């Protein structure tokens, strides 16, 4: 098997019933429903090799989740060809299902009223995991994600970040070969985000697992994905090295600082391009390679209370990269 995932000319249309507001609208749509077709995917093609970790990015409504759902066999493709681990996902062969996992940041599989360990036990039975490997996997995953102490707490009493980490344990307890992650860090604090990222990185490395990851968070992809696929409006815009994209379109980093007084404020220009200045907040854009130097200069010469260095948002990179594309 030279390719873990093959998608060719994938089209997915949704049929939605339009409804006017109010009671009369509801009534009307009951009698003569107005159907509208939403073309969520308009011929998407790409392939991924075993062990690759690929970032799948694009603006809201681009079709990322729809693609992941089709790849995991949830949605029936309107047209096109899809193959994962040489299986047709739609057929939902148990051998296929045992080797994949779909994690959605805003969906949960844990049993709400019971401790997470119960869901893990259930998954152990469902995936037919031998006791030995189950115990090993559980130990390893809970240690890596730092949730050993919370195993017996009812899920509803966990914080969002704790729950999300438990979701990951539940989704990975069967050691899937292919992992679809849909915004796995949504709603997590910086530390939890970093934990989850490190974990994904290790998991990919250690098990040579194929990972397709969507995110709106640049931080999730930097240092993680070598390759990115950009989707917009149901079509693939870019498929290639992440580094090339960054080099070309994210040459700068963003420094955000909070100042304690307005001394010296006119000299800010010397540090970098001012994107926003409304005291006490200031936002500068500086060349990627000079970010560290600029930050230390800022700290030395200005009354800085607080400072962060951030990546340009994904949406902005996409905008930059594709505004030049001629419209057809």
């Amino acid at each position: 098997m030279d390719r873990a995932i093959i998608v060719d000319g994938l089209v997915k249309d949704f049929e939605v019933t339009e409804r006017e507001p109010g009671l009369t609208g509801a009534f009307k749509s009951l009698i003569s429903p107005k159907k509208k077709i939403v073309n969520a995917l308009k011929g998407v093609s790409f392939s991924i090799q075993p062990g690759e970790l690929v970032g799948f990015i694009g603006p809201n409504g681009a079709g990322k989740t729809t693609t992941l759902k089709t790849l995991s066999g949830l949605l029936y493709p309107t047209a096109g060809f899809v193959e994962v681990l040489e299986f047709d996902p739609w057929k939902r062969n148990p051998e296929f299902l045992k080797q994949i996992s779909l994690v959605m940041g805003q969906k949960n599989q844990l049993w709400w009223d019971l401790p997470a360990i119960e869901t893990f036990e259930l998954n152990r039975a469902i995936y037919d995991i031998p006791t030995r490997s189950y115990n090993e996997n559980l130990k390893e995953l809970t240690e890596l994600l730092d949730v050993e102490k919370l195993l017996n707490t009812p899920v509803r009493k966990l914080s969002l970040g704790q729950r999300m980490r438990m979701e990951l344990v539940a989704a990975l307890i069967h050691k899937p070969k292919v992992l679809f992650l849909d915004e796995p860090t949504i709603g997590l604090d910086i530390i939890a985000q970093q934990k989850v990222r490190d974990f994904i990185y290790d998991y990919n490395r250690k098990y040579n697992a194929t990972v397709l990851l969507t995110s709106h968070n640049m931080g999730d992809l930097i240092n993680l994905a070598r390759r990115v696929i950009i989707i917009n409006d149901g079509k693939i815009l870019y498929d290639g090295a992440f580094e090339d994209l960054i080099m070309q379109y994210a040459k700068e980093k963003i420094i955000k600082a909070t100042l304690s007084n307005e001394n010296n404020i006119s000299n800010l220009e010397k540090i970098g391009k001012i994107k926003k200045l409304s005291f006490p907040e200031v936002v500068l854009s500086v060349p990627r390679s000079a970010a560290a130097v600029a930050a230390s200069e800022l700290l030395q010469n200005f009354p800085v209370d607080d400072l962060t260095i951030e990546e340009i948002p994904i949406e902005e990179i996409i905008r930059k990269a594709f505004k030049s594309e001629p419209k057809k």
Partner: protein
Amino acid sequence: MRKYLQIFKISFEEEFTYRLNFILWRIRNVMQIFLTYFIWSTVYSDPAKQIFGYDRTKILTYVFGIMIVRALVLSARAMDVSNDVASGNLSNYLTKPVNYFKYWFTRDISSKVLNLIFATVEFILLFLVLKPPFLFQTNIAVILAFLVSIIFAVIIYFLILFLLSSIPFWIPEIGWGSHFLVTVVIVEALSGSLFPINILPQGLQSIILATPFPYLIYFPVEVYLGNISGWALFGGLMVAASWVGVLWVFLNVVWQKGLKVYQSFGG
């Protein structure tokens, strides 16, 4: 197999998490029995009186029989399926190597076992309090026929619930509302859980007996009471079996079509 044992276990545990809810629900159950019991007890205040072929002992056995049969047949979890379909929660199961029908059937069974345990306790308590005349069936053949009719009833109810739960594939807004009409109106009235079907006019009776509903409650209870035997018993079991077959085929067709339009909401 272990898969489904584990599902049974976790399902059982979950039912206990809302203890207060559980207790209130059991109390409601007991009240319901009390109410039905007193209504019929008043109607048949004279022990010698016979209406519609039921005397006091038989009608009160019917009422108590309903209590046990209801606990076995109508306690089901599969109504949650409609919610799974509408909310997209179904996705959690579709991406796992587990049979969704068997999954819910297991959960139904677990719910039934739990119910049966409580219904038995309630039965004994109510029995001691009310000291009703009750017919203890001793004929092994009748008891066997009763068990078979219960198995059919359980499966028929499961299939009906699953079919109704498929509606949200096409109309997600309906959610669990799809059950309201059927569970509250049709099942309660036509299944015989409020009154025995054979007190109705003959014509209406035959129509109802051709539907799957009376095979949920009325038929098993009547079999237990020994009111149905011989060819009538055989015929009834055949009708119930046919409904199992018809509903099963129909469900599979509907479900396959449903999955193709499944929108997997959320995320």
